[in-house]
């Protein structure tokens, strides 16, 4: 039981990262129906932006909390800039192009960004990330179930990010406009909504959350590397689809589900199909099963097919 609870905690921590990154996928998809495969790289850039801020810009001896805040800002600046450039120069010219063209563009952007960081940061091997939050500091959750400080931080910032985004989309004027654009872009324009700006907003918000996640991941693992975005990106996209792509709560739910499935598969899947080597397979099996029975994902709206 103790092991189970500890694994549950592990799954929640893992899922928090997936969920945060998945939000970026789901927002952009909801509005322009684009699978932005390069979003994982935005997350990676957030991590590197934070690292750059710490190692290059911050003077030694900056108080930890201040350093963290500035690193987050640095990461966000890098992520958001990249997302804006990507939207403006890679995706926007392709509106109205055949549906799959942007998919290949996304692939190209993804390769480009990975290689850019790898060659010019330079980071041919993983870069150590400052351990500002002590990983050996453990919080006990009772019954010898523990969570280390950076992992707790990951979950906390993820939840804050998710709640903030959800509130923003539900309550704010721009958030309403995002919903409207997602549901019917032409009519949204008739309401006076500048849909181009809304698309940009979706990219920016996604990038900001990805940067949060990138920083959290750097703190949690103590490294960042140019490839970290690819795997996380695929997983986060999977999480978004699992939850019902285009749906914000769905992305969060999908992220946690995926994280917990992976962890539980590592511990409890029947031998010999257990362990790390099989966990991703289990994650995809769960995805396929969910989609077979709920073709629009866990929380996906069943939108009536319209011609």
């Amino acid at each position, binding site marked *: 039981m103790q092991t189970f609870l500890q694994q549950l905690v592990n799954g929640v921590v893992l899922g928090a990262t997936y969920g945060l990154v998945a939000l970026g996928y789901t927002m952009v998809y909801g509005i322009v129906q684009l699978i932005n495969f390069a979003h994982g790289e935005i997350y990676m850039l957030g991590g590197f932006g934070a690292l750059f801020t710490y190692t290059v810009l911050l003077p030694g001896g900056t108080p930890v909390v201040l350093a963290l805040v500035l690193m987050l800002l640095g990461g966000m600046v890098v992520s958001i800039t990249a997302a804006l450039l990507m939207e403006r120069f890679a995706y926007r010219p392709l509106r109205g192009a055949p549906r799959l063209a942007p998919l290949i563009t996304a692939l190209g952007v993804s390769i480009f960004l990975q290689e850019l960081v790898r060659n010019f940061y330079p980071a041919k091997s993983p870069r150590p990330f400052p351990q500002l939050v002590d990983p050996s500091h453990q919080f006990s959750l009772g019954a010898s179930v523990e969570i280390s400080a950076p992992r707790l931080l990951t979950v906390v910032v993820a939840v804050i990010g998710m709640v903030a985004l959800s509130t923003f989309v539900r309550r704010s004027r721009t958030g309403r406009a995002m*919903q409207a654009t997602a549901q019917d872009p032409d*009519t949204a324009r008739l*309401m*006076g*909504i500048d849909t181009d700006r809304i698309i940009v907003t979706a990219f920016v918000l996604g990038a900001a959350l990805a940067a949060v996640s990138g920083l959290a991941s750097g703190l949690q693992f103590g490294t960042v590397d140019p490839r970290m975005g690819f795997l996380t990106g695929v997983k986060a996209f999977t999480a978004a689809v699992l939850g019902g792509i285009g749906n914000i709560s769905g992305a969060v739910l999908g992220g946690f589900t995926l994280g917990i499935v992976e962890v539980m598969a590592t511990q409890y899947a029947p031998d010999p199909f257990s362990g790390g080597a099989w966990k991703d397979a289990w994650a995809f099996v769960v995805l396929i099963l969910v989609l077979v029975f709920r073709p629009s994902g866990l929380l996906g709206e069943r939108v009536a097919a319209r011609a």
Partner: protein
Amino acid sequence: MSMLEVRDLRVAYGAIEAIKGISLDVDEGQVVTLIGTNGAGKTTTLRTVSGLLRPVSGEILFDGQRLDTVKAHEIVKQGIAHSPEGRRIFPLMTVEENLELGAYTRKGDSIAKDVGAVFDRFPRLLERRAQKAGTLSGGEQQMLAIGRALMSSPRLLMLDEPSMGLSPIMIQLIFETIAELKSTGTTILLVEQNASAALALADVGYVLETGRVVLSGPGKELLKDENVRKAYLGED
């Protein structure tokens, strides 16, 4: 000077020209209706006026200012509201949220008052204010679409097929609403397939066929026109 002037407008979808040179005028306070069969270019005309489509040539003037180069979302701010064909309410948002989006371009606390005004006009919407708009009946959705268009306090209200697919009782209610709006001095550009009702209400009517204006004149006169009666009112 007319409030809205359309001069020799041509619009194409790819290689297909949907509007082949239309000119029309809407004066302040008038109700102007466009009638015609499917594919005549009525909806295309409205979509071009509100900036969703770009003309190949020709111009659109609103208060004498060029409109055809202005972006769609800017046009609303100039005072034109468009209730699109098929209602196109936002199905996953509540009735109230839909109405608030109608006032997206406006700021200030008069919005709440105007929401109240729409509820006064359509009490059915008040009952369903917290309900998802996608769950409303067709007639209720149409009320919502008109109410939403009114929320931008437009100087020109464009209604595209407001009676389409509705029950006779609903149709009557919708036309009553339009008549009421007319009586308060709202300028309306109305596209309708229900030609008799539309012409009966309209100050001016234009008959469109395959992208051209084939006939125009005061609504009452068109209503009497033999060709119109044959073609659009189903009389022999």
